[in-house]
């Protein structure tokens, strides 16, 4: 027993990963945790937190929890980015050392993609989609909560790596052999594989959930060609998730087995093939970038129509092009390893399919611009993000096409040209889009808008800082600077542009801080929206109900006979027709899914098992697994999932909201 404690300390805090940054992070985590507990106890919020949030299965609340997690992760990933940029500001700088740098760029990429981008998407899916299609909830509310908690605990596990045991340090792509035990002794890569497996399961479930929701739970009359575009984006994204995550799961599983179970899928010593990992990873990885960008496309389509006060231009071709992107996304993955020698025939095939994707994407860009044509544009914060997207994303996409020209990619590959390309599409497309969506639907979530003036400040800093950060990186690429270098020598001419890029990064950081303060400020000072249609120009179903939506969403499900139903309804009202409000006699009892502790407990059990697996402590891993199975079987035998809201209660609540029709 006595040797157990030193063993534990040595394993959890191995001496070769003790560095000031990590000790600082440990202290901050402990202090932060202690403060939160203190605050909860002092204000007796524990009960409230448990009942209202931790056990909820309400899609709107789950969406908000995703949002909170995503913003925290944006800060973490952004902080990582600023550390990278600081180290790169000058040649031979040692703000952090090589090992730390490698951990930081790995966590930066991984967090931004899996723990910032994905939850931000799911936040909007959850908040918006059921309201847009006139549904009471998603198809499987409990699975929805399980997805969230798997993600949340996976994110916690991944972040824990910085504090105990060592972080992953082989890039967000984690190619073997670098991730093999022989080259990577710490448990860092275990953290990577296991936490991504965990969040991957949750993500797959979310994909199924939203696909079923949209296929089966639309309001009567809402045919596919009457569906709002954000819902279309969700549909296509969910389909991408469904087909893309399984190869990833297998790639992760096989890498993990190589590390902890002695198999040799990718380890050379017994005939394994590292290239197969690369192949499987990008089979997922390329669709993944469209998973990240399609929801943003959906947001832009809603935002541009709303703030141009005009119908979306070319709805059918928008739908067609988005579906085309979804299908084509499966046929381009090799463009991430053109230089792996698969031969000219393979390279040409995938080069051409890569270029093909530019066509449907272009259709979307042109249709957005023509939506503005003949409209009346108001420049709110979401609209500004949309406008900033156009140059940013189009240049990023165009450089993507250049990367798809195979021989050119022999030069560009793994240079800062690629870094510039993907930040331009990831930030200009995904982040701008999701931020636009957050600003746009914020009143639907919370009942008040974010302050527009501060929002614009944040916008100008963030979108303005973007250009000096990333445009110079194209030139750095042309100067031969390769990615993932923790520092670089004098004399290659890379210094000036790197300084500019670093300064730009800090301007973006300032933009993020303004955004954060905007959130805090608006909570206190913004006036409440009583209409439900906070922007005044809403077009789709979600704006027809109060903000925030009541827990049952719609007292009576409307019959949707038009594409922009709410816009048409407003016009009908203006021409004197009777508003289509729920009539008391139409209101029926509503079944509401009950809160349940199973999802969070399931997440916790998973976390326990995963933590055991990271350190290959098999008993703990098995205990976690047993917990997972126990909970699943327990909930499988549970039958009583709903509570009934009586018609009287619904009527009362609608009356309070002033929504009862005659």
């Amino acid at each position, binding site marked *: 027993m006595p040797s157990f404690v030193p063993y534990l300390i040595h394993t959890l805090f191995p001496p070769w990963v003790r560095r000031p940054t990590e000790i600082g992070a440990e202290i901050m985590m402990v202090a932060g945790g202690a403060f939160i507990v203190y605050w909860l106890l002092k204000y007796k919020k524990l009960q409230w937190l448990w009942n209202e949030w931790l056990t909820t299965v309400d899609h709107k609340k789950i969406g908000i929890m995703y949002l909170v997690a995503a913003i925290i992760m944006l800060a973490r990933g952004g902080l990582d980015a600023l550390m990278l940029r600081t180290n790169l500001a000058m040649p031979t700088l040692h703000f952090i050392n*090589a090992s730390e740098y490698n951990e930081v760029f790995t966590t930066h990429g991984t967090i931004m993609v899996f723990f910032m981008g994905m939850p931000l998407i799911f936040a909007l899916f959850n908040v918006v989609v059921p309201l847009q299609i006139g549904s009471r909830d998603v198809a499987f509310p409990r699975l929805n909560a399980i997805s969230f908690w798997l993600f949340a605990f996976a994110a916690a596990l991944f972040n824990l790596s910085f504090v105990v045991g060592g972080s992953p340090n*082989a*890039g967000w792509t984690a*190619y*073997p*052999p*670098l991730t093999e035990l*022989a*080259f990577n002794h710490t448990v860092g890569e275990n953290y990577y594989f296991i936490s991504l497996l965990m969040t991957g399961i949750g993500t797959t479930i979310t994909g199924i959930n939203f696909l079923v929701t949209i296929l089966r739970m639309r309001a009567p009359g809402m045919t596919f060609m009457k569906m709002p575009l954000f819902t279309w984006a969700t549909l296509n994204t969910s389909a991408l998730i469904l087909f893309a995550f399984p190869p990833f799961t297998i790639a992760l599983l096989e890498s993990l087995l190589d590390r902890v179970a002695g198999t040799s899928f990718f380890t*050379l*010593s017994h005939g394994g093939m*590292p*290239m197969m990992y690369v192949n499987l990873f990008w089979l997922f990885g390329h669709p993944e970038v469209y998973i990240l960008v399609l929801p943003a496309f959906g947001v832009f389509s809603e935002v541009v129509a709303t703030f141009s*006060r*005009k119908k979306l*231009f*070319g*709805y059918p*071709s928008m739908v067609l092009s988005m579906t085309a992107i979804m299908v084509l996304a499966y046929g381009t993955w090799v463009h991430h*390893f053109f*230089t792996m020698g698969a031969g*000219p025939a393979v*390279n*040409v095939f995938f*080069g051409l399919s890569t270029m093909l994707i530019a*066509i449907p994407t*272009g259709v979307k860009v*042109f249709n957005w611009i*023509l939506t503005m*044509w*003949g*409209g*009346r544009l108001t420049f709110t914060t979401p609209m500004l993000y949309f*406008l900033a997207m*156009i*140059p940013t994303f*189009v*240049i990023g996409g*165009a450089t993507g*096409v*250049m990367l798809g*020209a*195979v*021989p*050119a*990619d*022999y*030069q560009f590959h*793994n240079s800062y040209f690629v870094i510039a390309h993907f930040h331009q599409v990831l930030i200009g497309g995904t982040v701008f889009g999701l931020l636009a969506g957050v600003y746009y639907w914020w009143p639907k979530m919370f009942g008040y808008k974010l302050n527009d003036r501060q929002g614009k400040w944040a916008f100008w800093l963030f979108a303005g800082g973007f250009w*000096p950060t990333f*445009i110079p990186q194209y*030139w750095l*690429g*042309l*100067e*031969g600077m*390769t990615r993932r270098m923790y520092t670089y020598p004098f004399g*290659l*001419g*890379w210094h000036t542009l790197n300084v500019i890029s670093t300064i730009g990064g800090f301007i973006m950081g300032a933009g993020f801080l303004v955004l954060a303060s905007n959130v805090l400020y608006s909570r206190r000072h913004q006036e409440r929206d009583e209409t439900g249609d906070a922007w005044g120009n809403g077009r789709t179903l979600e704006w027809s109900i109060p903000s925030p939506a009541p827990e049952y969403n719609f007292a009576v499900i409307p019959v949707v006979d038009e594409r922009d139903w709410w816009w048409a309804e407003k016009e009908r009202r203006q021409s004197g027709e009777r508003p289509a409000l729920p009539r008391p006699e139409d209101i029926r009892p509503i079944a509401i899914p009950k809160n349940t502790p199973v999802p969070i407990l399931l997440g916790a059990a998973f976390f326990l098992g995963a933590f055991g697996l990271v350190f290959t402590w098999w008993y703990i891993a098995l205990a976690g697994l047993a917990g997972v199975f126990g909970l699943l079987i327990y909930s499988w035998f549970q039958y009583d999932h709903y509570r009934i809201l009586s018609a009287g209660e619904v009527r009362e609540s609608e009356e309070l909201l002033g929504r009862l029709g005659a």
Partner: protein
Amino acid sequence: MRTWAKRIPLALLLMAVLAGCGQHAVMLNPAGPVGRTELNLMVLASVAMAIVILFVLVLATVAVVRFRDKKGNRAPYTPQVEGHKVLEVLWFIIPALILTVIAVPTVKDTFALAKVPAKNPLVVDVTSLDWKWLFEYPGQKVATVNHLVIPAGQPVLFKITSDAPMNTFWIPQLGGMEYAMPGRVLPLWLESYKPGVYWGHSGQFSGREFEKMFFSVRAVTPAAFSSWAAHLRKTAPPMTVADYHRLLQFTTVGHLSYSKYPAFTFPSVTHGFTLKGGMYLLMHNNPAHD
């Protein structure tokens, strides 16, 4: 708000860059036919893309300026417009045409670069190690570490592998890269038009000292190349198995030269047998293999 306003700093930036730092842009100053081909394609693609970008930006700017919601804006307001059949079809066709312009040379060049334009090119066996490069000249029987000497004016065929995690072998001024992967040999040919000095680097992250994987490249006249190799054979020490094992360690080293090298290292590496010792030791102790 106005898109053009955002572009002024960018233009200034680009001007500064072009004026001051052009000579550093190795990709834009290729010193050999491979890099030249690749540059031509880059230029073609950037011009095509510039046209697309310009068109989009102009269209967007006009829309934003013209249809602002301000009092007395006389531009037409047509909220019911749903689309325009002809335009929507054009959005599909014109980009497809532009892409064809890039696609045709892409296909041609990809196949062209896959053929070495010479019967018996000089061969260099390249092995990436943690964190250094080993160059073996099977024709000349000499080997170097971290510095490469090649004859100018003729294609050189690199056979690339790795006895460590993946890297890419990249000499930006001569042309594009190729992965160095354990268990597999990938061929790449490059050529320098004239004698010159370049630098090379790994493009694929390979661990802690990855940044140190620079190597120098010297292209010399064929005659100078022969005498260089002959000189090495006379003056440099031979590379022993023990030397190779030292190279395998997780270290960085400066430039090294050897007058000969163990004949089996490269072939066994390429069969995936030596990765960090392990199987390699077995092979080595096996007399049948030596």
